[in-house]
């Protein structure tokens, strides 16, 4: 019995939704089917079950694209046919609020008061017939209606007991459609990528099964109509994350990382349960998200309950989305296979927290009074969400500088970007936050898969020191990785530029000055560490395991390597120039599970001549996802360029509009300013990390002059490179050259070195003091406390059943006594 709950009670469109919108449950179901089918039949199939996952998730992807198309179609019909009074009133009210804020921009500092006033009027007048006239009159603007597609919701009764009704259903709106598409898209590419990356893995079947279940969990969560389903999907993802991080559990490091991730997110999950329970009672015994949002907007939830619920739910977001101080699990979670990291720890699961906050945004918006915040004179508004987000993005940005493992740099970068999203939600930039979520999914998945491709070609090492000069060997990976880096660094017109800009815009326009500065600083850090990674990976000289010892090592390990004879599948064009001749002789990748972490000692590349140890480009099923994601990293940003705003219109959903979340307009000043500040970071890092090349070359000329000037002393002091010293040491002096040289060495280098040193010290400091001491100390302390408590309680467990019974009865008697005394008192 499908019970249709009217979207807005007045929207009759619910009955006339496109077929796919009504049957959206098919998409999560397809992914969910992958789990039992892969487990049941996977081992018997030639591809060990990857066919099932690919086919089902591929179908889900096609359906989600079709869903997007039909959703886009729905809107146009809606707006023309149903300019019904009720909808119109709702939207006009909000649009009036929007106009209001526009007006106040002109008027200057009164934003808070007026915004609050308009908002109050709106809530009070909701449902009243005179509402429309009232707000419009107050706004004094011709209120342009906000174009929103009414959502579609199908909900079945799952369980009913008296007044408590637990539903199970699907909620389709623009936001859900976008999320469904993103998850299916990334998941499909990850499946494809994994067919190569995990080829021959001993638990390949289980891996693909977990991948399918994970995808199903996320899809279920993003299309959920009740908070119960959100919790369900959330926990499924937690479980799958555990399975995938600990995929190679033979190494205790990996299983420890899996446990750490599971327990850390679990800490936050307590908040999720508590928050959802509070909301259930606060919103009048309903689990329905739309009703909860409506209650929050209407002010029907008691204020204390609302704040408690928002705080508890935000704790869940901190755990799942790796916010400070629970961010420590995410870098460790890199122990899992790289495609799983791309899917889970970059693109989807970690954004579950952000998604949850965005989905229940009216609750947070009202609880923390995001629109009419308490304003400090200089720094602007503050609220917990924005503060946590800002701290996270800065701390993680600093930490990314000192990591030596490419995946960990990307992991900290993910933490930092999640900080952006959370901060965006905190400052009221709802669209900006979810737009960043959307674009970040593509470019971060691209970067992770790029890192996987690099390690795949460099003997399963993730250490940056094993890389260098790889652009020659892995051109496709290089180009796509650069696109991803550009998108992350917010280089216009790549994706990250548009989305990050919207968050900055929100911070700037909503009166959150401090957070505008913080996010600009974060952008600088982002550019800095990504420049470092790119330099260490793709530029300079290859320093990986083609050294004689390593080759010997590889030869030693040769007989252990198991061969595949499908090497023809590697297109010859991808082969690196340097070792084309050895391509045929070279053994294929060793996909032995431990290989990824044992690193260079185990790959089976020793078959050819010593040159066979050179890195190489990855085969098509790795490079194709990279190229597709690179294209997406370019186009996803442009869709929301000013004037187009396709994403904003597509995801405009009713609760957000009704809650009066501001939708600021593009501001060229903020855009240019933030880009310049960010790219300044890249510039400094460029000078710093590329210095060995740059300043080495400069050094030749200046040393020439210096040598001519005979400035022996300075040369000796500043140059460690003995060859250069010996060549130019007996030169001619030239005061100008010497001065220029001195300036070059002392002032410019000093500034550059200083900047680099500061960043590094800051990162180290944060890592040592905060991460290792405070955060880890707390975590360890909690663990030690639990252990001590367990030891203490162990004495109680004598194994004598009757003693247990005595304790039980004693406790019950004490409880009865208390109850008696209490009732006696009243």
């Amino acid at each position, binding site marked *: 019995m499908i019970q249709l709950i009217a979207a807005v009670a007045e929207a009759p469109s619910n009955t006339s939704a496109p077929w796919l919108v009504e049957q959206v449950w098919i998409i999560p179901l397809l992914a969910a089917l992958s789990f039992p089918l892969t487990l049941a039949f996977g081992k018997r199939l030639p591809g060990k079950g990857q066919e099932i996952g690919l086919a089902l998730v591929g179908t889900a992807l096609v359906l989600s694209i079709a869903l997007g198309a039909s959703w886009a179609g729905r809107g146009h019909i809606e707006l023309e046919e149903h300019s019904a009074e009720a909808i119109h009133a709702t939207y006009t009210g909000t649009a009036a609020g929007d106009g209001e804020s526009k007006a106040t921009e002109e008027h200057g500092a009164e934003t808070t008061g007026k915004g609050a006033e308009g908002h109050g009027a709106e809530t009070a007048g909701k449902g009243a017939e005179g509402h429309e006239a009232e707000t419009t009159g107050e706004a004094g603007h011709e209120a342009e209606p906000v174009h929103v597609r009414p959502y579609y919701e199908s909900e079945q009764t799952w369980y009913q007991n008296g007044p408590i009704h637990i539903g199970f259903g699907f909620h389709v709106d623009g936001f859900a459609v976008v999320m469904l598409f993103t998850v299916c898209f990334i998941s499909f590419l990850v499946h494809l990528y994994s067919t190569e990356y995990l080829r021959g893995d001993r638990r390949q079947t289980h891996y693909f099964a977990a991948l399918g279940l994970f995808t199903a969990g996320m899809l279920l969560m993003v299309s959920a109509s009740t908070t119960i389903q959100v919790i369900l999907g959330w926990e499924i993802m937690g479980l799958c994350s555990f399975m995938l991080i600990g995929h190679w559990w033979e190494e205790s490091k990996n299983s420890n990382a899996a446990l750490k991730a599971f327990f850390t997110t679990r800490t936050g999950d307590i908040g999720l349960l508590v928050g959802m329970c509070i909301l259930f009672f606060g919103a009048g015994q309903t689990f329905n998200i739309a009703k909860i949002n409506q209650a929050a907007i209407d002010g029907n939830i008691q204020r204390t309950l609302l704040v408690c619920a928002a705080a508890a739910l935000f704790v869940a977001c901190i755990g799942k989305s790796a916010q400070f101080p629970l961010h420590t699990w995410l870098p460790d979670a890199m122990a899992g296979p790289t495609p799983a990291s791309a899917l889970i720890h970059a693109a989807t699961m970690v954004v579950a927290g952000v998604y949850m906050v965005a989905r229940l945004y009216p609750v947070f918006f009202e609880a923390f009074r995001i629109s009419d915040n308490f304003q400090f004179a200089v720094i602007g508004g503050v609220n917990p969400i924005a503060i946590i987000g800002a701290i996270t993005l800065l701390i993680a940005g600093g930490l990314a500088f000192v990591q030596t493992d490419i995946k960990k740099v990307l992991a900290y970068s993910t933490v930092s970007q999640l900080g952006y999203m959370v901060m965006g939600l905190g400052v009221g930039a709802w669209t900006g936050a979810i737009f960043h979520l959307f674009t970040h999914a593509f470019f971060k998945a691209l970067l992770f898969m790029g890192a996987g491709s690099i390690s795949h070609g460099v003997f399963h090492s993730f250490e940056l020191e094993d890389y260098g000069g790889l652009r020659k060997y892995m051109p496709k990976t290089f180009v796509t990785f650069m696109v991803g880096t550009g998108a992350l660094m917010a280089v216009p017109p790549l994706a990250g530029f548009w989305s990050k800009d919207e968050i900055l815009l929100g911070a700037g326009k909503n009166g959150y000055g401090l957070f505008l500065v913080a996010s600009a600083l974060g952008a600088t850090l982002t550019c800095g560490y990504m420049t470092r990674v790119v330099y260490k990976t793709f530029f300079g000289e290859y320093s990986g395991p083609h050294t004689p010892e390593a080759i010997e090592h590889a030869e030693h390990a040769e007989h252990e390597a198991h061969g595949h004879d499908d090497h023809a599948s590697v297109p010859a064009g991808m082969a690196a120039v340097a070792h084309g001749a050895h391509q045929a002789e070279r053994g294929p990748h060793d996909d032995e599970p431990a290989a990824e972490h044992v690193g260079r000692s185990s790959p089976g590349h020793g078959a050819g001549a010593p040159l066979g140890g050179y890195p190489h480009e990855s085969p098509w099923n790795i490079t194709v996802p990279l190229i597709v994601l690179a294209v997406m990293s370019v186009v996803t940003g442009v869709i929301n360029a000013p004037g187009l705003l396709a994403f904003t219109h597509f995801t405009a959903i009713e609760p957000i509009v009704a809650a009066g979340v501001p939708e600021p307009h593009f501001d060229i000043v903020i855009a240019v300013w933030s880009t310049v500040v960010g790219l300044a970071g890249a510039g400094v890092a460029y000078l710093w990390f590329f210095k060995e090349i740059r300043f080495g070359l400069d050094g030749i000329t200046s040393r020439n002059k210096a040598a001519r000037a005979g400035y022996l002393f300075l040369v000796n002091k500043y140059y460690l490179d003995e060859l250069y010293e010996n060549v130019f040491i007996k030169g001619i002096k030239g005061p100008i050259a010497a001065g220029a040289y001195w300036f070059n060495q002392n002032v410019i280098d000093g500034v550059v070195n200083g900047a680099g040193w500061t960043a590094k010290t800051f990162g180290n400091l944060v890592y040592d003091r905060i991460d290792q001491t405070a955060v880890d100390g707390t975590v360890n302390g909690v663990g030690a406390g639990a252990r001590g408590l367990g030891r203490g309680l162990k004495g109680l*467990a*004598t*194994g004598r*059943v*009757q003693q247990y019974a005595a304790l039980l009865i004693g406790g019950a008697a004490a409880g009865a006594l208390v109850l008696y005394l209490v009732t006696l008192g009243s």
Partner: protein
Amino acid sequence: MLLNEFLILGAVIFGIGIYGVLARRNGVLVLMSIELILNAVNINLVAFGAFHHDIAGQVFALFTVAVAAAEVGVGLAIVLLIYRNKRSIDLTEVAEMKG
């Protein structure tokens, strides 16, 4: 109707049952004491049901009887297994759950 007499009877039986559960070492006797506890509750249920002219009390008592039968079935099976393994049904000898 005199409710108190029934409640006192129930309380006494309940007390005897508790004593038996805690103090007896024979597994079968412990099970029997549990039956006493359950029946004490049954008396209360029926008494309150009659007092309030509500059939629910008797219905609940019926449920309890059924549950008690099932419970004692499981319990006796456990005792039987303990006996097979230990050649004794002395509960003090069964301390496998020691932490």
